[in-house]
């Protein structure tokens, strides 16, 4: 299962491309209050969409407030303080765009190592690359070549999302493996990073409920919402 993170809520478009691209969407937004979150949840009720709260500043209170209410918590980077905050907390799931197009990338080896330890996914938004002018694109690529290299070295989970603000910015997540190759990763590593995101989130306890088809336990073909470690124990036994 491929997961894509978007910043718009047009249900018709999302459903159409979910079928076409065979992927699921995470709707990401900075919720000002509970009412906004409730409204969105009502809007997407019954749809196969997940909700993510986007933190725009290093605010622990906001993180605590929304942690239980949404599926994922993301922090928008491009700032050393926000990057540090995001990677140092296990409660944060995604650190989006750790570096911008500034001369000095706000991401270093230390942050990559802590992100790997705390299981924070480093998210790259393809939308930023797509909508930047050639001069900015050059700087962005320079910084992200470094980010990709550091994540590879410290084994931090990298993910590329479309980060679309409208339907025309959407891309198939499967194709982002070639974008990671473009950023200097080997093909095998890039494919592993793209395919392994859902498994990584499952291990973190963020995605629950999947089917096991095992020859050893034919009577237990479908397990309703089991936790990852329960299944692992069951398979071992």
């Amino acid at each position, binding site marked *: 299962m491929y997961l894509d993170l978007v910043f718009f809520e047009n249900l018709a478009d999302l459903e159409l491309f979910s079928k076409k691209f065979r992927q699921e969407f995470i709707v990401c937004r900075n919720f000002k209050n509970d009412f906004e979150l409730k409204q969105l949840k009502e809007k997407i009720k019954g749809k196969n969409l997940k909700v993510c709260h986007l933190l725009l500043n290093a605010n622990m209170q906001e993180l605590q407030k929304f942690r239980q209410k949404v599926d994922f918590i993301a922090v928008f980077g491009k700032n050393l303080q926000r990057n540090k905050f995001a990677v140092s907390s296990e409660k944060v799931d995604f650190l989006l765009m750790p570096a911008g197009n500034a001369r000095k990338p706000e991401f270093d080896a230390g942050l990559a190592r802590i992100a790997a330890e705390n299981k924070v996914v480093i998210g790259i938004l393809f939308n930023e690359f*797509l909508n930047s002018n*050639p001069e900015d694109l050059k700087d962005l690529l320079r910084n992200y070549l470094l980010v990709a290299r550091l994540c590879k070295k410290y084994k931090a989970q990298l993910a590329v999302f479309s980060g679309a603000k409208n339907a025309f910015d959407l*891309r*198939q997540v499967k*194709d982002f493996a*070639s*974008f990671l*190759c473009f950023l200097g990763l080997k*093909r095998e590593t890039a494919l592993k990073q793209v395919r392994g995101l859902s498994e990584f989130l499952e291990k973190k306890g963020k995605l629950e409920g999947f089917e096991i088809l095992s020859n050893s336990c034919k009577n237990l073909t479908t397990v309703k919402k089991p936790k990852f470690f329960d299944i692992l124990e069951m398979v071992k036994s």
Partner: protein
Amino acid sequence: MKNLKKTLKALPLSQRGKKRYVLFEIFAEKPLSATQVEKAVVQKFAELFGSKGLAEQKLQFIGFYGLKNQGILKCSLEKCEEVKAGLLFLKSISGIQCIPSIVSVSGSVKKLKELSESKRVQNL
């Protein structure tokens, strides 16, 4: 000057380098023509990779089938991932907004054409 060659000897297969064909699909608001797509692809690739990059990729536009909105690009095996990444950067073609997606990569055009046909039948 008697024995002047009229044609060059064909380059042996082993010297030509391996190639790959990329089948891509474009979702757009309006139907697109092959010329429009080719122009947009070459322009974007030149902007991203430069002339040297384009030469190394050995990029060749095989065709674009307007009815299916699918096209085939030929490139070198070593630069196949670069070509796939470059296609993702296509945002608009002749002012028409579009969403590119890679369907498949193969070593022969025949296979891709068959795949394209079967996909069309599935969609119908």
